[in-house]
């Protein structure tokens, strides 16, 4: 008997004109690992929600067809009743943490399921160990990084010992090594796993079966080998073409620097330096990728380069204006329409805004509300909103999170062209496939440079004339 059965599922969110899922049918067997692939906004997250019973119970909307989990019809069983049989790790870890201390967070689900009290702490410990997060047990959840929170969320799901584990981009904030370890742990669980991932290589390494969803329809359902052939033929960006070529042609020679950091140090609190005497140069015409494990200081260095943080010591030289894209796309939702959001930095010039939206593949969404966009689409909106003013130095923090391979390739190409226009681009990312002229690795100890530490000196960026008005 199948663990999960979906029959002719068609679903539309309340107030939505187009259905998010159309006629989806599939079966999931015990212990199988399934990769769920597809473009941003294609319905992957909705399908996971349907398997957890959250669609339609939590979201409402129009639901047709049938979803059964372990023989239970999800229309008749509430998600809380399916919990334990099913466990879900959602996309954004910050939005799913309930308790203030990590071990209590992991215990929360076990308490809800009525686990015997004597077993709870043992299972909490086992789950934290499996997610490589045992060292975080007594930490406050508010103090954890995104990557650490993702581990805690996974531990919370693992603690329930589900038969079906639904993972919605569970490693988007982890460095490649940590992601690999985590997915290896997941593979060894013995539960059926459905993994929605935009980093296709990661998903295929885990999965024996692949589902490809586009515009709400299940276009492919088959084994991994068959999937690789199908993807190569029909959706080449998903077949690894992009990941294998991460260089950009025409590296600029002898170009003037857009930004130079010399001997930069920084600490958020005394005695805990994040960066120590780091040197970095981004020249005009080049795309530089800043790599490094979680907690190595990539975001801090990116903020210093863009002028959002002042270094405690060292020198920052910048020529012209800098723009910075934060790794949280939710911070680019200030206005009521996508076009106004993109036009904010150019004094409301909708022509420029429309062009910037088209460059990131969001031209169609100009009149929509930004909060109606999917996670990946929000990420692209953020990129358009920052790049529209064409800053001399464009600093992007994890710009490919939640973005599908095709869009990612388009953005890579577009950024190379942007840099070729005589501007510098600095990208802090875990994405090893991101195309760049140069890759700079920031080690966990923030790689002290040879230059001596000097007193802080930062040439402030020119501010734009734009003021906040949607």
């Amino acid at each position, binding site marked *: 008997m199948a663990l999960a059965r979906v029959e002719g599922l068609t679903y539309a969110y309340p107030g939505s004109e187009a259905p998010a899922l159309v006629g989806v049918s599939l079966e999931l067997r015990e212990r199988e690992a399934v990769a769920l692939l597809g473009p941003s906004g294609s319905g992957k997250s909705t399908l996971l929600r349907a398997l957890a019973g*959250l669609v339609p119970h939590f979201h409402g909307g129009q639901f047709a067809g049938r979803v059964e989990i372990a023989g239970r019809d999800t229309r008749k069983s509430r998600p*809380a009743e399916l919990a334990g049989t099913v466990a879900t790790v959602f996309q954004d870890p910050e*939005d799913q943490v309930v*308790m*203030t201390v990590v071990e209590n967070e992991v215990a929360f689900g076990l308490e809800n399921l009525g686990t015997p009290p004597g077993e709870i702490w043992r299972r909490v410990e086992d789950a934290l160990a499996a997610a490589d997060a045992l060292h975080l047990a007594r930490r406050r959840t508010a103090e954890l990084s995104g990557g650490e929170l993702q581990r805690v969320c996974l531990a919370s799901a693992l603690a329930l010992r589900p038969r079906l584990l639904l993972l919605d981009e569970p490693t988007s904030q982890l460095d490649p090594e940590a992601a690999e370890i985590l997915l290896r742990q997941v593979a060894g669980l013995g539960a059926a796993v459905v993994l929605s991932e935009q980093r296709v290589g990661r998903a295929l390494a885990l999965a024996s079966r692949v589902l490809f969803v586009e515009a709400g329809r299940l276009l492919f359902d088959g084994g991994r080998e068959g999937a690789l052939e199908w993807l190569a033929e029909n959706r080449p960006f998903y077949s690894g073409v992009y990941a294998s070529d991460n260089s950009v042609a025409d590296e600029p020679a002898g170009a003037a620097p857009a930004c130079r950091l010399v001997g930069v140090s920084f600490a958020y609190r005394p005695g805990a330096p994040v960066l120590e005497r780091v040197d970095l140069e981004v020249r005009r015409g080049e795309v530089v990728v800043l790599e490094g494990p979680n907690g190595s200081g990539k975001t801090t260095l990116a903020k210093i380069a*863009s002028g959002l943080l002042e270094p405690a010591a060292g020198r920052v030289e910048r020529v012209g204006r800098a*723009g910075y894209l934060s790794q949280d796309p939710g*911070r680019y939702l200030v206005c009521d329409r996508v076009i106004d959001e993109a036009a904010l930095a150019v004094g409301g010039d909708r022509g420029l805004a429309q062009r910037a939206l088209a460059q990131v593949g969001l031209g169609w969404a100009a009149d929509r509300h930004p909060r109606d966009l999917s996670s990946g689409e929000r990420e692209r909106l953020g990129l358009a909103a920052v790049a529209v003013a064409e800053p001399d130095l464009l600093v992007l923090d994890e710009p490919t999170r939640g973005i599908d391979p095709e869009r990612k390739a388009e953005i890579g190409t577009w950024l190379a062209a942007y840099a070729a226009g005589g501007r510098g681009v600095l990208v802090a990312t875990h994405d090893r496939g991101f195309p760049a002229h140069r890759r700079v690795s920031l080690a966990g100890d923030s790689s002290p440079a040879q230059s001596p530490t000097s007193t802080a000196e930062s040439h402030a960026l020119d501010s734009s004339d734009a003021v*906040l008005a949607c």
Partner: protein
Amino acid sequence: MKLSAVPAAVLLAGAAAAALLASRAISAGAIAAVLLGVCLRAPVGRRRLYLVGAVSTGLGVFVLSPFLWIEGSSALWSGPTVPVLGRVDVTAEELEIAALNGLRLAALGLAFAAYALLLDHDRLVAAAGFARRSALAVALATRLVPTLERDAFGLAEAVRGRGVRVEGARGRARLLSPLVAGSLERASALAEAMEARGFGRAGATRAPRPAWGVLDRAAVGAAAGLVVAGALWL
């Protein structure tokens, strides 16, 4: 030896009640000072917002209320006659009452700050018995303050990163709407995650917690003593 969350919360509530019941400014001031000392144990970055809120509220009451009351005869300053309010003046008695009320309010704010900053809310939720859902709602609401502060900072930073200036109170006010919308979206996502983890299902259990020690019992006794003292002697 560390105080458990529930006795600590009871002690803070006792201190706040004693401050409200106190009839002398020096008593309310002493309680506020002790609570301020307790709050200073929290990390600087986290405590700033709470302390500014508690102290400025108390100070606001102290500064404004003498102009609004008509009390006492020892006039220190006489001002103009304002429609509805009448003659605006400040007397020694009004200042004394204003100081008492300001300190009471500051003590109340500081007790809440200590609760929000230093207590393990998870333990309070776990100890809530039949009212677990309400306790969880209160704990989540308490957590909203630092979350909102973090979101507001992040939003302003992202706007600056786009080269857009956020000018004055009007500019900041424009960020209020997206901030509230973001909070609602987050609350909805959290509710969804809680439901997916079985919240609200019948037959929930509790993870075992350490039993109360001598210090915990003493704290509950001290809280009761504070309330009585506040009503009778302070």
